[in-house]
């Protein structure tokens, strides 16, 4: 790892000021992606601003309509929250499937979506449940947040404070994990929400996206058989040593049917 100056942020405003005054500063949440990236010398920030001490960014609150999760809330905290399990079991289940126990004890929801790894799980939940990303500057609809591979709507130095998930009528997340890393080769969140059916896919493309043909097919008949005959094009999908684009396109159909079936 190249040398850098470490800063511990006291508050969101302090973090924003510290990252703004650095030559090439980065914000660090749990560090589960940033630190390995820096160890491989794929990133060389001059300054690292650690959000780990900002207590106001961690925590879960649930109302009748919304589950709000602070950006620095760990995957383990979401996976084991009785309130999340009750309100949106698919979200707790998704969190419990990320990485391994040690990664879940450090990794955070804010770090995950700010990084926007194409194979990360949480982007599927933000899109699939129609969440809103609340930053220190504004509220960003989930539909506008993920813009490309590792690209988001966040401005430089903008800090995610929390993610608000509207509680769906029903939802389920099913993924085909890479057996070594547990990253999604393909993950699908299917949900029936107050504003309609949503089907979001992660792992398959440059970033998470909605599969609108499936949403239309499910709108009148929310059952796995409604997806018979809905084909997914492999154009633009990821291909790597784990799965070809054609295989990922096939998996989207299979995972989507399983997710709809799991909604019960």
């Amino acid at each position: 790892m190249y040398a850098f100056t470490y800063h511990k942020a006291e508050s969101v405003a302090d973090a924003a000021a510290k990252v703004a005054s650095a030559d090439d500063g980065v914000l660090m949440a749990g560090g589960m992606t940033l630190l390995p990236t820096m160890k491989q010398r794929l990133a060389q920030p001059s300054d690292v601003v650690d959000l780990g001490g900002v207590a106001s960014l961690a925590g879960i609150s649930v109302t009748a309509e919304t589950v709000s999760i602070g950006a620095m809330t760990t995957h383990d905290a979401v996976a084991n929250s009785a309130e999340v399990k009750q309100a949106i079991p698919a979200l707790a289940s998704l969190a419990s499937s990320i990485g391994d126990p040690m990664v879940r004890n450090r990794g955070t929801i804010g770090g995950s979506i700010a990084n926007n790894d194409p194979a990360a799980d949480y982007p599927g939940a933000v899109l699939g449940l129609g969440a809103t990303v609340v930053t220190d500057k504004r509220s960003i609809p989930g539909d506008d947040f993920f813009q490309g591979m590792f690209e988001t709507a966040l401005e430089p130095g903008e800090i995610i404070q929390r993610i608000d998930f509207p509680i769906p009528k029903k939802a389920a997340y099913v993924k085909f994990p890479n057996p070594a890393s547990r990253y999604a080769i393909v993950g699908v969140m299917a949900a029936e929400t107050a504003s309609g059916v949503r089907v979001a896919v992660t792992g398959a493309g440059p970033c998470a996206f909605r599969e609108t043909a499936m949403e239309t097919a499910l709108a009148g008949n929310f059952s796995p058989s409604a997806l018979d005959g809905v084909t997914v094009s492999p154009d633009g999908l990821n291909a790597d040593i784990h799965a070809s684009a054609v295989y990922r396109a096939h998996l989207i159909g299979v995972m989507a049917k399983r997710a709809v079936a799991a909604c019960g």
Partner: protein
Amino acid sequence: MATVSMTINGKQVTGDVEGRTLLVDFLREDQRLTGTHVGCDTSQCGACTVHVDGKAVKSCTMLALQADGAAVTTIEGLADGDVLHPMQEAFREHHGLQCGFCTPGMIMSATALAARNAAPTEADVRHHLEGNLCRCTGYHNIVKAVMAGARAMQA
């Protein structure tokens, strides 16, 4: 250089570290606590697992400065003098190690599981150990040891 202070195995320690100093390097090089191992150095193998404020973490993927003010427990902190911790004793009893390199991380991960689940099933243990790799592939006895160790920790 910056000053870092933490409690390691009940003892208050202070040291000077760079921003980039990893927790595992502070433990091994500064504190000479070499029971915590570096296997892959890429957050996958879990040989570097320690507890920070009671939670199992990979100490190769955490900066020493992130642990400032924390309570850290390493494999050296488990035994009571010459008396092995019940999980260590279970690994000895069930031959839960072959070369022994992954063992400190396995045991630190296993004690975290046992703290949350007093009677883990074989499936629970195998699922929990997803972040700990044994290159000898000696998982069968490791799983037996963790199940026995978790029961022994309740005694």
